[in-house]
């Protein structure tokens, strides 16, 4: 295994597993809305539109058989959020899980934060593989014994039992947000976390549920002056005082909480001047940033807008250091994509373990691997047709116009209903999780 998790085109990706229903009729509740590996990569969590969280666990590798791939199997499933009803507005508050973030592991139990539009919950996932047996007053099935029949005393002992994984809500963080929560981020101090909605960002302490501290507020005095919303936020991976947030106008602001209590004034503003030759009615919409992620080493951050992925050096504010086109062939289709609302799709992006490759999704169940070190990119597809065990994924090509070569697919044939919005990369290994509408694909590096 190439432990460092590097390589885009050196690596050949093969199918490992697919989770979820096979039939094309997608139940709305099964639509996957978030995917996240934990810090060790042993656990993989998904959230769906029905408010459920499913956690998969990697089987411990069989070292004696290097060919044997570790598989992810269901570890725990629980209902995280339920739908609520806002009586004043006659609106249902969706139970869809918008984001899951894991806490670093401190003891035997695992903790994660999951959030819907309104409420954030801290869940504890713990294992139980022993149970006490030999009570004096109770039978094994729980019935009380007749006191008269007890003649001896014994000490109950722990005996092994079938592994049981329990998930319990430990904290519920309510009423922190007036608008819809779009992201959460755990601080490197392991005590606090951020939650962002369209107009505000709050800082919470993991132990305190009835109060949060508002650090960013961009709500104007008159709502009619509103022209910009917050789209994502993230804490710096090492500096516990630093966080960034992205906006619908394509800007990223870096804030330092040491500078002032309210971070409405940014420390840095990252913005690339618009290319006048690409100007159209849709320029602003496609510049809206849908995701922002720091690199693992904390020196860069990556942003995803509708057509591209940009890598920014934290020390350079006026332009990104790298820009990658995800699906430039869509630029001439923007009006159609505006008509059918696809232009508002929010794609996420992720880094590999050593920050050399980034990945993001596209349409037609395609996803893109962009290799920074080798300046190469590849388009792959998550499809049921490439589902044989260890089947190597073939690179896909999209033909923008003109003569379509063999094996290419033309832009007009793309299925815009099949979008890959959520992807995740194992923090150490070359294992990726790619979510189509209702299926989760796991791909691994080809082993020789």
């Amino acid at each position, binding site marked *: 295994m190439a432990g460092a998790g590097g390589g885009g085109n050196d690596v050949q990706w093969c199918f490992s597993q697919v989770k979820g229903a096979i039939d094309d009729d997608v139940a709305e509740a099964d639509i996957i809305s978030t995917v996240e590996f934990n810090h060790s990569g042993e656990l993989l969590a998904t959230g769906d539109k029905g408010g459920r969280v499913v956690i998969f666990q990697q089987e411990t590798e069989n070292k004696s058989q290097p060919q044997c791939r570790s598989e992810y199997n269901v570890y725990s499933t629980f209902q995280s959020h339920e739908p*609520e009803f*806002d*009586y*004043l*507005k006659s*609106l249902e*508050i*969706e139970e869809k899980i918008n984001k899951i973030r894991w806490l670093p592991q401190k003891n035997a139990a695992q903790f994660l934060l999951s959030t819907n539009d*309104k409420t954030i919950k801290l869940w504890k996932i713990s294992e139980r593989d022993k149970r006490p047996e030999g009570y004096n007053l109770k039978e094994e099935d729980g019935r009380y014994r007749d006191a008269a029949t007890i003649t001896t005393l014994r000490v109950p002992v722990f005996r092994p039992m079938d592994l049981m994984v329990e998930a319990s809500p430990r904290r519920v963080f309510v*009423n922190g*947000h*007036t*608008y*819809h929560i*779009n992201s959460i981020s755990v601080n490197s101090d392991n005590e606090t976390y951020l939650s962002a909605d*369209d*107009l505000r960002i709050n800082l919470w302490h993991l132990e305190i549920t009835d109060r949060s501290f508002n650090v960013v507020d961009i709500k104007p005095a008159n*709502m*009619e002056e*509103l*022209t*910009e*919303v917050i*789209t994502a936020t993230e804490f710096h991976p090492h500096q516990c005082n630093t966080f960034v947030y992205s906006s*619908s106008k394509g800007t990223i602001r870096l804030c330092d909480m040491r500078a002032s209590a309210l971070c409405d004034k940014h420390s840095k503003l990252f913005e690339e001047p618009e290319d006048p*030759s*690409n*100007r*159209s*009615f*849709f320029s*602003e*919409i496609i510049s809206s940033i849908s995701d922002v992620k720091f690199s693992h080493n904390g020196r860069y951050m990556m942003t995803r807008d509708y057509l591209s992925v940009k890598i920014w050096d934290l020390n350079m504010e006026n332009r990104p250091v790298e820009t990658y086109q995800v699906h430039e062939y869509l*630029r*001439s*289709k*923007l*009006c*159609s*994509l*505006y*008509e*059918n*609302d696809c232009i*508002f799709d929010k794609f996420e992006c992720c880094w590999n373990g050593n920050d050399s490759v980034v990945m993001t999704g596209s349409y*037609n169940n395609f996803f893109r691997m962009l290799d920074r070190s080798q300046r190469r990119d590849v388009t792959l597809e998550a499809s049921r047709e490439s589902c044989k065990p260890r089947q190597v994924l073939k690179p896909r090509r999209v*033909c*923008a*116009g*003109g*003569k*379509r070569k063999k094996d290419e697919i*033309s*832009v*007009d*044939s*793309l*299925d*815009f*209903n099949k979008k890959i919005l959520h992807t995740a990369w194992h923090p150490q290994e070359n294992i990726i999780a790619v979510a189509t509408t209702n299926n989760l694909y796991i791909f691994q590096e080809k082993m020789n």
Partner: protein
Amino acid sequence: MGQRDITAFEASMKRKNGIPTVSMCRLDVESAVGKKEVEPAGGDGALSSSRYMLGRGVKRKLSTCEDPAQDLPYPQQRQLVLDLCLDKLQSCQQRAEPSLHRSVLLANTLRQIQQEMRQEGETCLPPTPLGPSLPLASTPRHFPDLPPVPLDCPPPLTGALFPSFPLMTAEDEEVQLCGTENETLLPSLAGEDDTRSLDSLFSSFEITNSTSYLTDLPLDDIFEDIDTSMYDDSDISVLAFPAQRSSGVDDGLKTVSCCTSNSSLQLCLSDINDLDHIMEILVRF
């Protein structure tokens, strides 16, 4: 796998079996197999390199080999985007997942177009009302499934047009058609109407902590401001309407007075009276 696209003439997207296909928007480039390569010239972007169709009923050319001739004048491209924008903003409230982010982006696009149009209006002759004269806007758009318009939806019309009582009758469709025509007048309206509408639209996205709303509020207060005097059967309420009726409607009034006290019929007809009155005002614009 991929879906074959269907080129369509309609401005609005139809969802087939819930699966959106990218129907050809007039402003987009069509890429078909076997044609000469069409590249956006000099990176001009979507608009300059697109193939344009003049409007409904014009034969679509099969090949895109010709130069991006810009057959469709820029104002018509802009009108198309404007129409789409207004469509989407109006349907914002009825979506399953209302999104402030989306509304803000739409509002910004709308504002940008309006600003452009106003600037042009200042530099050349004042434009004729953009309503029925433009071929694109002349066909009233059909809202087949539009549910009753909620009060806080941003219509450019005054609140009087939408009855404050929840009756869904046939003339609601007329109401919506009125709305259509008036929306194309939107660019020429003063900015305050827009901002007021946007204000109500954006404020409607707040999630309130209202689980105890119904129990906290003394219920009688909710109904205080609803004027129910019109609906008393005992009064001859129809004849007591303010005397702003045009003569053509008198027949209707007489017909009503002959009816038995069918209060719902009275109410229907009074709706039509209101509607006619306001239609006159609109037509004069």
